[in-house]
């Protein structure tokens, strides 16, 4: 099963009838077990793109579909949000169970799988805490567990680490890498952090700004397991530099305009 984005575009129209093209003509295929990062400057529509794939926003034209789905199977999508979007009235355990409830998993099985998921992200013993009792990094781990326990066919991550401080962020990046290795599910990962994209992804898709178009697709040809090794650092830095040079002009324009990514 693979995810296909075909000629996708999104045009926003404001009250004055002014049209803004957020995304234009996006073609992208995410293969089984592939981790694709989407980077771009503010205003490139990368979050909009993820929102369309998640079924939270309607595309203006084009289509998104899963290809090669077994008959009778509904592909599951797990999503991780920048602001973690945990339900404050639910305990950690119940938050992780939320997705399982929606797909109709029984009570005992739900509890078992949520505990298992929490153990995977290193949060055993925190099942009965509420989100506000946790640190930012722990909350996002709950968010990741909530997405992983439904055994998604597609994992969507919308800047999952960007609300965290720099140190926690680096730690979480390593953890995410290991976690992902254990699930190996196709993933779309939106970030504005180039190093993060290079560290995690199989391919990095670079978007331009307004309209958001794919300007470059860069395969990261260093096996994920070896990316921590000293010998490969220069190669990874070259990738990052290439990406930065691609988006630099757009990033400057975004900076001068001071427009938030929408």
């Amino acid at each position, binding site marked *: 099963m693979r995810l296909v984005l075909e000629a996708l575009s999104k045009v926003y129209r404001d009250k004055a009838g002014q049209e803004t093209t957020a995304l234009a003509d996006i073609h992208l295929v995410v293969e089984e077990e592939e981790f694709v990062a989407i980077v771009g400057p503010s205003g490139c529509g990368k979050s909009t793109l993820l*929102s369309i794939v*998640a*079924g*939270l926003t309607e595309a203006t034209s084009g289509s998104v579909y899963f290809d090669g789905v077994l008959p009778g199977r509904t592909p*599951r*999508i*797990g*999503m991780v*949000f920048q*602001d973690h*979007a*945990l*339900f*404050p*009235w*639910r*305990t950690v355990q119940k938050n992780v169970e*939320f*997705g399982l409830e*929606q*797909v109709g998993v029984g009570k005992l099985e739900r509890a078992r799988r949520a505990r298992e998921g929490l153990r995977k992200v290193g949060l055993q013993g925190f099942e009965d805490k*509420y989100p*506000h009792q946790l640190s930012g990094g722990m909350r996002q781990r709950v968010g990741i567990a*909530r997405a992983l326990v*439904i055994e998604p066919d597609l994992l*969507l991550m919308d800047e999952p680490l960007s609300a965290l401080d720099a140190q926690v962020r680096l730690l979480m990046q390593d953890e995410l890498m290991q976690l992902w290795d254990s699930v190996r599910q196709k993933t779309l990962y939106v970030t504005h952090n180039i190093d993060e994209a290079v560290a995690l992804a199989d391919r990095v898709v670079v978007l331009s700004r307004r309209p958001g178009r794919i300007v470059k697709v860069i395969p990261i040809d260093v096996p994920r397991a070896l990316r921590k090794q000293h010998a490969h650092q220069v190669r990874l830095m070259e990738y990052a530099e290439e990406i930065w040079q691609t988006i630099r002009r757009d990033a400057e324009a975004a900076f001068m305009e001071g427009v938030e990514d929408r």
Partner: protein
Amino acid sequence: MKTDDVKTTQGRNAFERTEIHSRMRFLEKSAPRWIAPVGILVILAVWQTVTGIGWVSEADLPSPVAIVKAGFEMVKTGELWMNVGTSLARIALGYLLGAGSGVILGVILGFSRISERVGIPVANALYPIPKLAIIPLIILWIGAGELSKIVVIAAEVLFPVLFSTYSAVRNTDPSLIRAAVAFGATRRTVITRVIVPAALPTIFAGLRIGAGLSLLILVAAEMIGAQHGIGAMILQYSSLMMTDKVLVGVVLLSILGLILSRGLVQLERWLLPWKSE
């Protein structure tokens, strides 16, 4: 300036040390817990003394002891429980009716754009009317019986609860709704599992405001047209110049108000465990 030049006669450096201490300390003064009951006792003692030695006449302001005595007397004759019971029944029914319909209407107005368009201007127009003003009208419509008191209390409680519910529903954190939908929640699930629980803390704020108002309107309604109840009792004894029994009623109202607000706090703790620290 050359530092070495500045020497005292002893030959020590003339520059002095200036330590920096927190300048916020004046804001951080704390008070011990025992001070509260002690303070109340002191106030009661002063009150007792002032009336006891005759600075203030007992007819104007009865002493605490006299009020307690009067209270016991009223317990013995049974009138106290009867009046308290009548008031409690009115406030309980009126509050439940008003708060219940406030929550339901608030949820409807928060969801349906049509009812919002129609209902919000109407609610805005009715809200500022002092419900006291419509007591005669309500009595005209449904008679001076128990129901009229209950309806007036309900009308008073309705609006703060309605508005807090409505705005809570309208302002649900959209990221929570998105998260729920992303994981496959249906419209119904989003309403019952996301919007309502998210709105509860704000709904409780409305319930607390409503509780205070319900007490106020209860007394007013009972003074305007009732045989029994704490309000009627207070009015009756004040026309007889029996200030001690009037003050028994006032103290009862204070206790009733405290119980109401404490009860709501407890209910909130029980229903919203995730809000308490």
